[in-house]
């Protein structure tokens, strides 16, 4: 088996744009008989996806439950609470890789544009900083 544990960062707020990444992660999970953990980052303040961290966690775990149906090991969810998600997202995801002991990250990212020279996309940042494989889905 090439991969034992796949981590899939989920942006609950933009779940509509994540279909392809989710499909990819599910397919790879089945393919390798791996475990799947979906990871979400939220702030302590009310946001679009949830009113508070507890609600966010509940939604994420409900999503994991559904994605896990039909997977060999089901799917886990893990919520991280950040003071300032915009600034901390990349660092938290990098820590999460170690935390959940993943050996492959599958994540959605937009198509690079000129501005990414100044602000790299989160997927791009992960790929260049993580010490495991990162599958950036565009």
């Amino acid at each position, binding site marked *: 088996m090439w991969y034992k544990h796949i981590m899939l960062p989920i942006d*609950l*707020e*933009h*779940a*509509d*744009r*994540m*279909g*392809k990444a*989710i*499909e990819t992660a*599910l*397919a790879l999970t089945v393919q390798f008989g791996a475990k799947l953990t979906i990871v979400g980052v939220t*702030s*302590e*303040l*009310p*946001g*679009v*996806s*949830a*009113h*508070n*961290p*507890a*609600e966010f966690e*509940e*939604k994420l775990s*409900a*999503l994991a439950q*559904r*994605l896990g149906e039909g997977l060999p090991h089901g799917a886990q969810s893990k919520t991280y609470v950040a*003071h*300032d*998600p*915009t*600034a*901390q997202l990349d660092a938290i995801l990098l820590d999460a890789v170690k935390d959940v002991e993943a050996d492959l990250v599958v994540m959605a990212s*937009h198509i690079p*544009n*000129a*501005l990414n020279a100044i*602000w790299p996309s989160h997927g791009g940042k992960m790929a260049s900083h993580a010490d495991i494989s990162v599958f950036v889905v565009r």
Partner: protein
Amino acid sequence: MRNENPSTEADVDLTVQTEVVAIPAPEGRTEIIETDYEIGRDNIASSWKLEFDIHQVVFTVSALGVLAFTFLTMAFHEELEPAFIGLRGWLTGNLDWFFLLSGNIFVLLSLFLIFSPLGKVRLGGPEAEPSFSYVGWFSMLFAAGMGIGLMFYGVSEPMSHFDSAMGGISVGEDGVRTDWAPLGGAEGDVAEAARLGMAATIFHWGLHPWAIYAVVALALALFSYNKGLPLTLRSCFYPIFGERVWGWPGHIIDILAIFSTIFGLATSLGIGAQQSAAGLNFLFGLSTSNTILITLIIAITAVALVSVVAGLDAGVKRLSEINMALAAILLFFVIAFGPTMEIISGVFSNLIAYGEYLPALSMPFQREDANFASGWTAFYWAWWISWSPFVGMFIARVSRGRTVREFLIAVLIVPTILSVIWMTAMGGTAIDQLVNDGFTGVQDAALELKLFEMLAQLPLTGLTSLVGIILVIVFFVTSSDSGSLVIDAVAAGGKVNAPTPQRVFWTISEGLVAIALLLGGGLAASQAMAVSTGLPFTIVLLGACYAIVRGLLNEAR
């Protein structure tokens, strides 16, 4: 593979959350407000060429308004300056009773809440844990809240009140007092004039300003963390306006908050650059040309930019802690090398003097010392209140997990005591130099140089003055970065996870507005305008008081 053709839409059902209908309480039972509003409902977002996620009305009107107002004040500053300064003068002159009365209400409510059972309510739910350590939390709220003013007024204000109190009372032909002495003054009585001067200064930097911040911060923290509303100023109006708060009444409150914050910050940045340049000139003989001023503004903005991009923990918090450490070093230095024993005993006697004069100083009606009550006190109250949306929102953002009692002690009592120590050390040393050594350097110096004149009489002048200058600059940075985070969140409809380019936009806007106003004239006009927003916000704050009590009554204690 389930998806043979990569171009077809993925068939995963992405409607997150179906059975979960009730919102779980944050951590433990709280009263979540059921509202139809969804955060981000009125936002427009893009993830293409330039990522953004903004509240369409609030962002657009604020950004265009800032642009328009900056151009107007530059183009017509000769006409607008007297108009706005007149407006500010009229407000603080005729409505001084309203500002003073409201200030007292804020203090009394805060003190009441500390002692009432409502103080047991925890922000974020009964089991919520504090977001920040005491040191980080306190550094941030203090650095955002007053910082810079303490640098300039710490020496100058006690001295001003001491001077005017010594001068005693003078009455004009129309029977109105023309002197600026607080209360009845203390003509010729050195000890009493010093006591009165310190009491009046502490009054302006003590319980009242912090109660103003505490009311806004508490209302916002309560309605966001416990009741699930977005972190924007309009949320504390939910108990009053109901669902209409998500429409125009709320837009106006938020836009006004952005206006007063950006012009408050930009004018302080402009005026602060002038003051720092004067300090640099005094110390190193640098010129005070526009080039130096603009360089200073750009440098401050650049550091603030790095800080906001690094975020709340890596940027704002770290800078605030550095700031507090530097301020503590300067404070201990002055205590150690200044009149040590007098400062230590002064802290207690000034605290007693503050308590003794507090009722008379805060009396809203029938004041004999009209110049002092409106020119100093009401002006200060309007000024603090116009800053309160920004400082309050920022304090709210870092205060999750504290109980209301803990919160109020940290936001009200601790800063007041620190202000007493700071004012006693800085102002007391300067008064001591004048009274005991006959040194009139501080008395004669311009406002921005008084601190440096005082430090020049102590050892290691070069080093301490340099620390002073650095502190002034870092205090600006810590206001500018926290201000930008707040403006960005409000302009994004309460979202704190909006893309980075937006906070960069607001930070740079502040710097550009400051430079434009500095070069084109209009700093005085826009500062007067920012202070004038104190009036509408006083009404907002009174509404917040009502909202706090109503909101707390429904929480688990």
